[in-house]
């Protein structure tokens, strides 16, 4: 078993439980032992535009906790993942700030070394686990499903810091969907915004973005929408009804975490993947299993 530290951030353990359940259910099958690291706090990202050095400090502190135990990090939330990437990018190029951050970390006996390897599910599955092993484990074919991919902006942007996939033409999620027998067509709205970031102050605009993207997915005739971000998932899944009201249409799109879909393909019990927590009609995606 490869030990890998799990860094969940804030949204997953407080609301998006299904994401965590599916991760804990599926990854051990690929030889990964998930380790919870004591003492981690906020990833820092929400403070980024208010106090950059505080963001760096919070993120560096999390990194230091993982480095102390010599653990790699899995950050399934793209927002957290981006905070770690950016912190490493900035601190590795700015010795002055690094010294400053380390001076603060010293109070807890911590040091930011900059040696951490961190992953999101996208690159962990695509680059580390690999398509071949996923194909091997996928016993239940999802043939017949055409699943739209939603990456989420933080997973692929900005392109001047290392991200798990290309900013303008990401393809890894489609490859992963194809690996479990589903199809994943290109659609014009693939990189469109989920709306999550303006939900608090411009909720109508936010839900309009959510609704428009779901309408596009529906119009294209996709069987469902796969996500890899708890923020996007929350908009498309939990808020699908409000989004429908906002755009004045009826929406009926199954929205599922990719890792849940992978679990289904591996023949896992839907309940163990938290499928009962999805608000959208994901039952439809389980249907193909019955024929097998």
């Amino acid at each position, binding site marked *: 078993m490869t030990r890998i530290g799990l860094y969940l951030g804030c949204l997953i353990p407080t609301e998006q439980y299904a994401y965590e359940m599916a991760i804990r259910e599926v990854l051990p099958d690929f030889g990964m032992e998930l380790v919870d690291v004591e003492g981690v706090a906020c990833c820092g990202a929400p403070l980024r535009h208010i106090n950059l050095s505080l963001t760096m400090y919070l993120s560096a502190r999390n990194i230091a906790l993982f480095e102390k135990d010599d653990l790699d990090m899995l950050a399934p939330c793209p927002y957290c993942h981006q905070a770690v990437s950016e912190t490493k990018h900035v601190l590795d190029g700015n010795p002055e700030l690094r010294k400053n951050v380390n001076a603060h970390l010293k109070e807890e006996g911590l040091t930011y070394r900059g040696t951490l390897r961190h992953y999101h599910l996208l690159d962990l599955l695509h680059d580390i686990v690999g398509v071949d092993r996923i194909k091997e484990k996928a016993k239940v074919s999802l043939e017949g499903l055409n699943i739209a991919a939603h990456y989420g902006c933080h997973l692929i942007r900005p*392109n*001047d810091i290392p991200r798990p996939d*290309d900013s*303008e*033409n990401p393809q890894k999620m489609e490859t992963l969907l194809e690996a479990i027998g589903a199809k994943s067509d290109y659609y*014009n709205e693939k*990189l469109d915004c989920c709306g999550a970031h303006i939900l608090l102050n411009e909720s109508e605009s936010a839900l309009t973005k959510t609704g428009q993207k779901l309408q596009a997915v529906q119009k294209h005739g996709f069987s469902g929408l796969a996500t890899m971000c708890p923020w996007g998932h929350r908009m498309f899944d939990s808020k699908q009804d409000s989004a429908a009201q906002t755009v004045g249409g009826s929406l009926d799109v199954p929205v599922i975490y990719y890792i849940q879909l992978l679990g289904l393909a591996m023949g896992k019990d839907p309940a163990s993947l938290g499928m009962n927590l999805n608000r959208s009609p994901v039952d439809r995606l389980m249907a193909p299993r019955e024929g097998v």
Partner: protein
Amino acid sequence: MVRIGVFICHCGTNIGGVVDVDDVVQFASGLEDVVFATGYRYMCSDPGGRLINDSIKEHELDRIVVAACSPRMHEPTFQAVLVDADLNPYCLEMANIREHCSWVHKNDVDEATRKSKDLVAMAVAKARTLEPLESYHKNVVHEALVIGGGIAGIQAALDLAESGRKVYLVEREPSIGGRMAQLDKTFPTLDCSSCILTPKMMDVSRNPNIELYTYSEVVDVEGSVGDFKVKIKRKPTYVDWDKCNGCGECALACRLKDRIPDEFNEKLGKRSAIYVPFQQAVPLKYTIDPNACLMLRLGKCGDSPPCKDVCTLDAIDYGQKESIVDVNVGTIIVATGYDMLDAAEMYEYGYSRSPDIITNLEFERLICSSGPTGGKMHRLSDGGEVKSVSFILCVGSRDKDLKDYCCRIGCMGALKHAYLLREHEGDGLEINICYTDIRSFGKGYEEFYGRIRDIETNFIRGRPSEIKVQDDGRLVYDVFDTTTQKLLQVTSDVVVLVPALVPRNGAEDLGRMVKISRGADGFFLESHPKLKPVDTSTDGIFIAGCCQGPKDIPDVVAQASGAASRANTILSKDVLASVSTVSVVNEDLCSGCGICAPVCDYGAIEIVEVADSDGKKIAEVDVALCKGCGVCASACPSGAMEQKGFKCEQLSAMIRAVSSRDS
């Protein structure tokens, strides 16, 4: 015993404002064999030169140290002063206390002064070991090579030929003409591009001083300024050009007629396997495309190949082989031009997703009345009517992710295209131009921009985020117009991308072959950005046109004439002074191992047998070929090969001087 004079330049405040020159003068006065030291405000000025000259006489100096700027700039200036004072020019040593010291340490006066002393101490130590060197001369070959047959190469070749020089003009494609031949009209005068280019192409073919090699490539360059030895590979055209009269019957008869994508038309049209790129081609001789021709690929073309059947001159020759031509020239002009950045690199602009998203060069072929559509615009996807055309400028240009620089022709090209579209398609058509800034900097350009502003054109100041293909095939994009602060959604039938310009494919290899440097952007680097814009880091090699950086036609032509004129400054001489700091072999130490010979880029070293020696071999340097680069000396395992002016003992003296200083 030598008598050294040290002259320390203030360079105004460049050096004097940072380094304590008086302190350095005092320090220099105390160094061994220094009999005179002084500072002066501008040592490179006339009074500065006189000061050195007078001091040489007054103090009977025989070695001179000048501590000033880089020797790249003023070594020749001070060497001339020495010659005036009857000293050998190689009795000069320079210490660079400007670029290497005051400019980089301007915030640390004490350290800069200390470092200046180090540099002066080193220079004085070397000056004590300097020897007068003899000068060599070489004969100049009065012929020139021009690489690239676009408008830059054509102009340079014509200028040289008209001044009586023999010129070899080498072009990779079957015809000269380059990018300009592909253009429909030129901005801002709207001259028909081929109408003004064709006469120049004809002049090339008629000029007895120009030997034209098309469908050929330069494959090897040896030697140096005044005497380059060049190998030109003539690719097989499979047509005997001495017989071919360009009648074109073969192309009409070809079994693959209208089947092969036509490069000249940016693959929007089709040609035969035997072809001329365009009807005004020079030379008007046919070429068989070996990647298409059935005979060349499969050895069979129906019962008998129709091109051969119809050729009454018996010019078709499937057995033709490539050949190598050796030429000897005094100077080379590189004019290899540009390519477009592959528009598919910006995935978001959809170049790979819709045939209606095209580049400006493709548009140029489509709007041209002799182009594949006869100048009529229609949607390439379904032949449908075009109601709206959008131009997206700066695709990959002025973009820190791709190319930082401006393409210098995109704005004016798009304005020209807007004009031509309005002229061809009338008032009903919507024309949108998404720009960053309209850069209409050339003569008559701003006036032309004003004219386009007056014909109905939507100018949107902003870059679209991405171009999407709707279900009906039309193209839609969002763009934030920064002049009105409005987010616009635009739907068009055709989107024309204006991509960044990049060096022509193969420029990297050619640059290595002729030994000229390239900048960070990949374009060939001029010797000085202001004062030597067509010279390169290698003497005798000049650059012209877009291989040096993006530019428009008038700038290209001016630069090409400039390069020809610079080339003539070499070709007009019978002999050239060559370097004196050549390599010499210590015959007692040389074992004849031969390591030095292959590392010499100039072919100056030969391993020869010593006469009456029982087969002992040694290296021999041809001083006429040696450029004094020193590579052989560093490769020599026994220390037998040394470079004059940079001998081991001279460099060791410098190292000893700096390492023994108390710091």
